[in-house]
C-alpha cells in the first residue's frame, strides 16, 4: 500500500468512543425537540409564515425587523470609522438599482431583495415570503403589504431608522462608485487579484480597518460590482446580484394601496431604544428560545432568525393580544438598541453571555461605554446593571 493510501486508511479506521450516558441524554433532548416541533408546528409545518402573519404582534415585529436590519450597516460604518463615513455620499447615477443583501453568513443568512427606483425601495425578505415593504425614504414612510390577507399598513419611519435606510442606499451607491473609479485616496483599496465568480471573471479589492472590513469583487470588463462583503464587528453582510438601470414599473414602488387591498391600522414606536429595552429584549429571548440561558451571540442576523419563530413561541404562553404585542415589541427594541448603538454615541460593546444561565449574578454578560460616560455599564446574568471603571471590567 502506498504511504498516502496508508494515511487515508488510518484516518478511516480512527474510531470514536462515546459516553453512553451522554448519548442517551442527547437523544432524549432531540426527541423532546421533535415533540415540541410537532406540537407547535413552527418548524415542522411548511409555510409556517402564513400562520405567523395572522397576528398583529408578529406583523408589527416583522415589519420592524426589516426596517432595523436595513439600518445597521450604515449606522455602524458611518459612526465607527470616520474614513468610511467620508464615502457615504450620493454620487451614483443609476436610475434604478436591484440587489440582494444577506445578513450573516452568505450561505445561511437572511436575504433581503431590494428594488430601488429614485428614493423608493421595494423590499422583500427570504424568511417572510408573504410580505412586501415599500419604503419612501424621501418622506420617511413605509407601506407593509401582506399578500395573503390582502392588507396594507403604513408606518412612520421618522427618526434614526428612516435616516439609516436612506443613508444605507447612499452607502451602497457610493461603494459601487468607488469600485468603478478606484481613485478615492482615503479608500485605499488593496487589490486581491482576479478570479472566477459565478462564471464571470472578477477582480477583487479589499479595504478597511480593525473594525470594518470591506471586500469588493467587480466584473473585469464592466467594472460593475458583482459582490460586496462587509464585515463590521461581528456582523457580516453580503451584497450581490446587482442589476443597474433595468426598467422598473412605478407601480412596484408605489406608496398607494394596491387594488383589492384594505388598509389596516398599525402603530409601533420605533423612535428610540434604551438599555432597559435591550435588557427586556434579552429576557424575552432567553424565556422564549433558549430555556433560561443567554444566547450564543446577539448579532442582527441572530435576531432576524428568531423573528419568524416568535409567534410559535408566544402561542405556548397563552397571552392576551396586548401582552403578545408587548412581548414582540420588547424583542425588537432589544435588537434596535444594538443597531442604534453607535448612532447614539455609545462605544465598545462586548457580549459574553454565551452559555450563562439567567440569574447567574457572578457573570457579566454585556458591557458598553455610554456616550460621554467615564465608566462602563455592565449587565450581569441576573440582569442587574452596574457602573464599572474600565480597569475593573471582566477579563
Amino acid at each position, binding site marked *: 500500500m502506498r*504511504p*498516502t493510501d*496508508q*494515511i*487515508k486508511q*488510518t*484516518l*478511516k*479506521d*480512527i*474510531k*470514536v*468512543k*462515546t*459516553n453512553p*450516558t*451522554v*448519548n442517551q*441524554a*442527547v*437523544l432524549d*433532548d*432531540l*426527541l423532546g*425537540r*421533535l415533540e415540541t*416541533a*410537532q406540537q407547535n408546528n413552527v*418548524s*415542522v*409545518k*411548511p409555510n409556517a409564515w402564513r400562520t405567523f402573519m395572522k397576528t398583529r404582534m408578529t406583523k408589527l415585529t416583522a415589519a420592524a425587523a426589516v426596517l432595523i436590519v436595513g439600518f445597521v450597516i450604515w449606522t455602524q460604518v458611518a459612526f465607527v470609522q470616520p474614513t468610511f463615513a467620508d464615502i457615504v455620499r450620493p454620487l451614483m447615477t443609476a436610475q434604478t438599482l436591484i440587489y440582494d443583501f444577506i445578513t450573516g*453568513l452568505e*450561505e*445561511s443568512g437572511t436575504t433581503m431583495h431590494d428594488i430601488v427606483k429614485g428614493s423608493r425601495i421595494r423590499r422583500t425578505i427570504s424568511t417572510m415570503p408573504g410580505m412586501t415593504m415599500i419604503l419612501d425614504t424621501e418622506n420617511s414612510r413605509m407601506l407593509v403589504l401582506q399578500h395573503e390577507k390582502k392588507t396594507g399598513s403604513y408606518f412612520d419611519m421618522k427618526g434614526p431608522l428612516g435616516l439609516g435606510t436612506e443613508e444605507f442606499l447612499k452607502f451602497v451607491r457610493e461603494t459601487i462608485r468607488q469600485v468603478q473609479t478606484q481613485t478615492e485616496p482615503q479608500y485605499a483599496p488593496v487589490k486581491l487579484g482576479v478570479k*472566477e465568480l459565478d462564471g464571470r471573471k472578477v477582480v477583487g479589492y479589499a479595504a478597511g480597518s*480593525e473594525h470594518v472590513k470591506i471586500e469588493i469583487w467587480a466584473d473585469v470588463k464592466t467594472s460593475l460590482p458583482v459582490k460586496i462583503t462587509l464585515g463590521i464587528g*461581528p456582523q457580516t453582510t453580503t451584497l450581490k446580484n446587482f442589476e443597474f438601470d433595468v426598467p422598473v414599473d412605478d407601480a412596484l414602488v408605489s406608496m398607494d394601496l394596491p387594488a383589492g387591498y384594505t388598509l389596516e391600522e398599525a402603530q409601533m414606536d420605533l423612535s428610540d431604544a434604551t438599555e432597559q429595552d435591550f435588557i427586556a429584549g434579552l429576557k424575552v429571548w432567553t424565556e422564549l*428560545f*433558549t*430555556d*433560561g*440561558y443567554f444566547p*450564543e*451571540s446577539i448579532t442582527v442576523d441572530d435576531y432576524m432568525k428568531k423573528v419568524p419563530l416568535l409567534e410559535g413561541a408566544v402561542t405556548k404562553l397563552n397571552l392576551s393580544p396586548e401582552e403578545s404585542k408587548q412581548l414582540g415589541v420588547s424583542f425588537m427594541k432589544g435588537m434596535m438598541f444594538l443597531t442604534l448603538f453607535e448612532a447614539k454615541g455609545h462605544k465598545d460593546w*462586548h457580549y*459574553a453571555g*454565551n*452559555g*450563562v444561565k439567567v440569574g447567574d449574578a457572578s457573570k457579566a454578560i454585556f458591557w458598553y461605554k455610554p456616550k460621554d460616560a467615564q465608566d462602563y455599564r455592565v449587565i450581569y446574568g441576573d440582569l442587574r446593571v452596574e457602573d464599572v471603571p474600565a480597569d475593573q471590567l471582566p477579563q
Partner: protein
Amino acid sequence: MIEDKMLIWKLRKGDRSSLCRIYEKYRDDLLRIAAGLLTDTSQAEDTVHDAFISFIDCIGTFSVTGSLRGYLTTCVANRARNVNRAKARHREVGIDEIDPPAGGFDRPEQWLLQDEAFEQFRGAMAQLPYEQREAVILHVQGQMKFSTIAAMQQTSIKTVLSRYRYGITKLRSLLNGEVTV
C-alpha cells in the same frame, strides 16, 4: 440511501424510532469529523448536537436531493467553520476564551471519550491549517467529493486538491506510523 429516505418519510410523520435510527447511524461519524475539525472538544460535541437539532427543525420541509450523510456532514462542516471564524474574530478583538454554545442544554459530562490513538489523530489534525484539515477530513472521513468541498470552500477544485495533498503529506510526517488503531 433508500433506508434514509424511508427514515425521513417516517420521521416527518412523527416516528420517534426513525430519529433514534438516524442518530445511531450517523452520530459517531459526525463526532469524528467535528473532533477532527475543531480543537475544542466541547465545541465539536456542540456542533454535532446542533446539526441534529437543525435537521429536526427543518424536517417538515427537508428534501433529500443528495444523501442524508452528506447533508449532516455539511451541517457539521459549516458549523465548525463558523466556530473557527468566530474564534478568529474573538482573537482579533482580544477575547481569548469562547464559551461553548449551550443551546439550552446541559450535557451531564463529556460526550467524546478519547483514547491515545484518537488524541494522536486530533493532535496531528490541529497542526494543519484549517482549510487543509477540512479538505482531508471531509474527503476521507466525510466521503465528500472534491468538487463539493470546493463549493463549500468557495474555491477551485485545483486549490482543494492542493490543500488535500499538502494536508495528507504533512499528516504522514506527523503521524509517521505512530497511530495504532
